[in-house]
């Protein structure tokens, strides 16, 4: 009874509560630092990711923190440029997936048949392992950034579609939805006004999970050679090349792995913090 009214405030400030706890602060700091470093990389290293040095396959050293690659390029620089590619990809893919998936999930309230049909299609997508599906999309559309983007969105859609549908199914039987209908409010208005707000929490939390998932997906596709193509770096492409030199320079892949893990760790913590915030009783 005596709870703060802002608990149900639907503005972003509600989610910002997540950044008041140590977990959230830490996650946010790491994400901000990594993102800034990635997107400032072209400015800091005007030479770009292709500047070659004299020594190839150097181990980690104060000069080259992550060592150098087979052409003598600094792996730290390449990792940052790679991270930039990855982050661009997921920062575009995640919101699209979240929005489209939610829409597909909630459409069932406006048209029952369409909703069911969409769910069955999503079920089929889930039936394929993510990587196999990604390979299929890339084989059809060819390699490159747009194909990668599309395959990530397609793989992510079922998760959000089903989450939104779960919220729909649990809420549409509630009396306040019936109440809105007896008032004569249209179904699409009810979706936006009453059902969407109840799906948003789960969607946002899942969104943070999905970002990690998407980065790993890019890495997986690149490792099998279907992701970002050289010379453009991506974390996955770096790992792909690094694996080939694993006997000559075992530390080659360490740098990209550290960045990948750091990113994954930060987003997992963020998920956790968001989850605790939205589910706080």
């Amino acid at each position, binding site marked *: 009874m005596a709870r703060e009214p802002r608990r149900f405030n639907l503005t972003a400030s509600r989610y910002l509560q997540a950044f008041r706890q140590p977990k959230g602060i830490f996650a946010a700091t790491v994400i901000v630092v990594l993102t800034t470093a990635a997107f400032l990389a072209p400015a800091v290293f005007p030479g770009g990711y292709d500047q070659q040095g004299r020594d190839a396959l150097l181990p980690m050293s104060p000069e080259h923190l992550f060592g150098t690659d087979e052409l003598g390029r600094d792996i730290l620089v390449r990792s940052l440029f790679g991270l930039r590619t990855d982050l661009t990809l997921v920062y575009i893919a995640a919101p699209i997936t979240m929005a489209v998936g939610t829409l597909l999930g909630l459409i069932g309230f406006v048209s029952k048949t369409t909703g069911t049909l969409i769910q069955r299609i999503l079920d089929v997508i889930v039936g394929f392992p993510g990587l196999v599906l990604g390979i299929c999309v890339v084989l059809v559309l060819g390699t490159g950034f747009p194909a990668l983007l599309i395959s990530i969105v397609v793989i992510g859609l079922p998760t959000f579609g089903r989450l939104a549908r779960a919220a729909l199914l649990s809420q549409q039987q509630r009396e306040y939805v019936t*109440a809105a209908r007896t008032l004569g409010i249209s179904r699409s208005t009810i979706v936006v006004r009453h059902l969407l707000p109840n799906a948003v929490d789960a969607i946002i939390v899942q969104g943070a999970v999905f970002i990690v998932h998407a980065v790993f997906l890019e890495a997986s596709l690149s490792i099998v050679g279907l992701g970002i193509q050289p010379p453009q770096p991506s974390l996955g492409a770096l790992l792909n090349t690094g694996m080939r030199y694993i006997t000559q320079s075992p530390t080659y892949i360490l740098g990209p792995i550290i960045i990948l893990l750091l990113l994954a760790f930060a987003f997992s913590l963020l998920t956790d913090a968001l989850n605790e915030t939205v589910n706080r009783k």
Partner: protein
Amino acid sequence: MTSDTRDSASVREDQPLLRVEGLQVSFPTSHGVVRAVNDISFEIGAGRILGVVGESGSGKSVTARSIMRMLRAPGQVDGGKIMLHGRDLLNETEATMRDVRGKRIAMVFQDPQAALNPMMRVGDQIAETLIVHGTRKHEARQRALELLHKVGIPDVERTIEQYPHEFSGGMRQRVVIAIALANEAELLIADEPTTALDVTIQAQILKLLVDLRKDLGVAIIMITHDMGVVAELCDEMIVMYGGRVVESGPVRTVFNNPQHPYTNALLRAVPRIDTPAGHALPAIPGSPPDPARLPGGCSFHPRCPVAVEKCRTDRPPLEVLAPSQRAACWVSASGGDVEALPMPVVRTRTTPEEPGKPILQVENVRTNVGKPRHPIWAVNGISLEVRAGETLGVVGESGCGKSTLSRTIVGINPVGEGRITVAGRDVTRMGKEDLRTVTSTIQYVFQDPYASLNPRRTIGQSLEEALSVAGVKGHAARTRSRELLERVGLNGDHLDRYPYAFSGGQRQRVGIARALAANPKMLICDEPVSALDVSIQAQIINLLEDLRDDLGLGYLFIAHDLSVVRHLSDRVAVMYLGRVVEMGTAEEVYGAPQHPYTAALLSSTPEPDVDARKRERIVLAGDMPSPANPPSGCPFRTRCPIGPLFNKDREICATTPPPLAVTSNGQIAACHFAGELAAAATV
């Protein structure tokens, strides 16, 4: 009750079975310590039935759980004694308590659905209790069969293998009681055991409890909010308010001469089945106190009509005020009269005598809630009419189709057959224009005020949403929302609060305000008070009556509570299995019920009157059949006390469905033998 059980109980009265002394329970929370139970003392003798009456937050369930030493975290007992046969349960080890639970004291819960494991056969669940307390496996099954038979479950050899979902609500509660009785406990704690059940099923369970007490000598602590159940069943009672006992004593004495104004108000605030309408109910103002913020002095003083200055500052002790009766009240302690209540307003209504134009006409409507190919007719051919300023009460038990009917009228369920006319327009097809007519004419008040408001929207937003449909927007909507809130007795400044800041009764007022937003001519009230505390029900009923008389609204008032329907309704329709079985003015239907089902419903309703205990009851056997598989002929014949079950020669009931027709004395009922049971049921 027979006289010898009373005697044998009174012999042992000096050695009570259970004595609770000065029990204190608190819940430390982040907002501070909530004292849920404050210094409670009572006792119960072997084979007695003690009624514990109170509203939500009064501490009655917490007391029950403390006796079992099963308080939910973070609850803790801060003081007092719980003496079972002279041994303090609070000092026992957890191992000993496990032995006490189930074997000495057993518990029956409100929701039998939640109390049974859905994945376990009922036989195994009973046997589990037995085996835990040392019965051998092969004996356990035999004993489980006996127990199921004892609690009145038919065909035990077959039903023992079934799962809980194959049982109806009443049958499940019987299984729960069988489990409680498995180890011959001496004390049964029943926490609102019939609240979730229908009236006719409640009558069955109450009868079962009385029989079990007689046969097994088990003592029962009956926790309830229903004064009728107490009057029907209990020997002694305690009334709880704000975590304290405010009155205790033998049921007859307390009912006839309440010493605490709260007890008195509770007894008066309930509409009675045998009193005709015409008076506003003497409602208790305000709502039950939040246990976290109890008022100082006597916790009832803010709502008390006779409170004096001393009540605000000093807490009254529980004193002996009459022979064997105790109460905690300064006024009655000093000889004052606690029965003085503000005189109820006599209503002056003109509408029923000269009813207005029909707002709603329903003709032979059927509603299919199954598949198109395998229809399930939840509403099976119903005709009724509601006029301006008039209340049509619809009575029936769960599953009779009363909610489906109302949802069909507002277009949520499609009309299968028949015709619905709203404000002169045929809206059967429920097209866009039809729906507009329906929503602007008829509005809906829902049962659960917690579910019918979106928790994420302020009540202002909820009201403005309703107003926007009616074309009122922007600043005008805001002003109108304030008016609406004030119209239903709430503070107009509270528009920006979220629903959780309001109590149940206040939320129901918001729900009514929202329904009024579009200036409807008629309200459908679907069980509008059944989820509310007793003292709040009267407030909402009064509000609904005021609105009807002031605005000339027509009501379709749906409820399972016959007393509430009688109080509000001009005409009453009784529903059974998707059909109307009887219809007429409230006086006719309640005074001389023509259909045996109506008679049984009336007879099953517990009345807050100890003398009503003597009357002969019609306790119906079994449950309502499923509308998916209705019986041939008369839908009621499978339970009918005058039908082919008891009169073998009445084959007509199984072959020919009785039409809703005028009976010999001019009333309307659907029965081949209408009027036969009327005499027996008249109170």
